[in-house]
C-alpha cells in the first residue's frame, strides 16, 4: 500500500505535477465518476483518494501527500447542507479554514492547497476545477513550496 502511495504522489517534473485529491464518497466522487462516464476530458495529473466524508479527511493526509511528493492537494466534499452524514462537511469546513491558515503561516504556498464543493451532478465543475488547479500548479515555480518536501 505504501508502495502505491509513493507511486501515486510521484511527480515526474514541472510539466506533469502530481495532484492528490481527497474526495468524499457521496458527492465529489460521484461527480468525478459522472465526468468519467460522460467521457469528459480533463488533466490526468490528479489521483483521487476516496473517503467516506470530507469530515474524515485528516489534515495529516495533506501533509502526508506533500511529504510523498505531491505538488498540489485538493480536498472536496458535498455542498453545505448536502452531507450524507448531515454535518460532516460543516465540521470539515471549520477545520480547514483554520488548518489552511496554519499551513500558510508556516510557509506553505496556499496556491497548492485547494478546496471545493462538488456534487454528484457536477461533473462539469469537477473537470473545470481540476483543469484550473493543474494549470495553477504548473504556473508555480517549482520548489517555491512547502516545508514537508524531502
Amino acid at each position, binding site marked *: 500500500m505504501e508502495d502505491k502511495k509513493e507511486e501515486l504522489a510521484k511527480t515526474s517534473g514541472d510539466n506533469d505535477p502530481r495532484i492528490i485529491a481527497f474526495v468524499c464518497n457521496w458527492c465529489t466522487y460521484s461527480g468525478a465518476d459522472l465526468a468519467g462516464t460522460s467521457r469528459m476530458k480533463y488533466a490526468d495529473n490528479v489521483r483521487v483518494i476516496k473517503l467516506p466524508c470530507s469530515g474524515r479527511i485528516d489534515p495529516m493526509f495533506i501533509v502526508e501527500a506533500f511529504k510523498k511528493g505531491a505538488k498540489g492537494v485538493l480536498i472536496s466534499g458535498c455542498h*453545505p447542507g448536502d452531507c450524507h452524514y448531515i454535518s460532516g462537511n460543516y465540521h470539515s469546513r471549520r477545520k480547514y479554514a483554520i488548518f489552511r491558515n496554519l499551513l500558510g503561516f*508556516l510557509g506553505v504556498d496556499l496556491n497548492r492547497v485547494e478546496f471545493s464543493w462538488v456534487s454528484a451532478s457536477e461533473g462539469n465543475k469537477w473537470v473545470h476545477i481540476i483543469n484550473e488547479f493543474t494549470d495553477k500548479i504548473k504556473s508555480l515555480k517549482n520548489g517555491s513550496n512547502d516545508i514537508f518536501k524531502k
Partner: protein
Amino acid sequence: MANIDEKLQKIARDLLESKEVSLIIGYTGGSHPQRMRPVFITKPEDVGRLSFNRHSVQDLAVFLKKQEVKKFGRIGIVVKGCDEKALNVLMQEYQVSRENIKIIGVECNGVIRQDLADKGETDLSENTVYDKCLMCGEHTPILHDYLIECADPQISMSGDIKPFAKIEELDSMSSEEKDVFWEKEFDKCIKCYACRQACPLCYCSRCIVEKNVPQWIDTNFGKIGNAQWNLIRAYHLAGRCIGCGECERACPVNIPLMLINGKMARSIHDLFGYKSGLDVDAKPVFGVFSESDFNDFIK
C-alpha cells in the same frame, strides 16, 4: 507579599483540615529567590510552604492530567488568571469536574520572564514580563472559589512594545520567506516533546507521535519530522490553547511556539468569534459549526 502568602496558607489549611480537598497544588520558593516551583501539600501542617509572587510562572493546571495527581480525588489548586482558563477548557472537555476542584484564584498583574529572572531581574515592567501578560484580559481568574487580591501594581504600558508583533511581521511575508524563517526555527527542535508535556491541555493518553501503525510523524530529527511535529502540535491545540505560554517557556531550544499558537487563536477569533477558556459552558469551537461559516476559500 507576606499578606498574600498568609491568606493562601489560611485557605489551604482550612480546606485540608475540613477534608474538602486532599491535595493542594501551589507554589513555593525554588532554586533561587527569582524562581518558584510547584508544591504539593497534603497535610495542614505543611501549608507554610505555600507562597505566590511575580515569579510564579508555572501553569499548575498541567498537573491535573497526571494519573498520580488524579488519584487524590478532590484537589485545591492555586491559579493565576491565565492558568484558570486552562481549567475552563479541561472542564469544557470533561477532563476535570468542577465539584472536584477548589480554585484558589490569585489576581496577577504579570509574571517576570524566567530567562530574565534567572539573570536576577525582579522588576515588574513591560520589558520584563511575558507577552501574554501585556495583553492579558483576565487578571482576575474567571472562576474561583477563593480570591486573593494582587500585590503588584498594574504594569504601565508605554505603547512601544506590541505583544506578538512578530505574528504580523510573519503575516506580511511571502511564503518563501516564512518557509525560511520556520525551517530555521524548526531545525533547532530536539523533539524532547517538552512542549507537549508542559501543556495543560495536551492530555491524550497516547500522543499522535507515539502512534506507529501507521507512523504519521517521522521520528527523525530532520526537517520533515520536526516540521510535522510542530505543525500537528499547534493544530491539535487550535481553538483550545489558552495562551499560557508554558510550551514556549519549557522549550530548551527557544522555538517561538507562541507565535504559532497566537496565530491560531487570532484566526479562530477572526473567523468564528471564539476565544478559548473564557466560558466553561461554551461548546468547543471545533465541536460545533454554523451554516454561515467562512466559506470564501472553498470553490
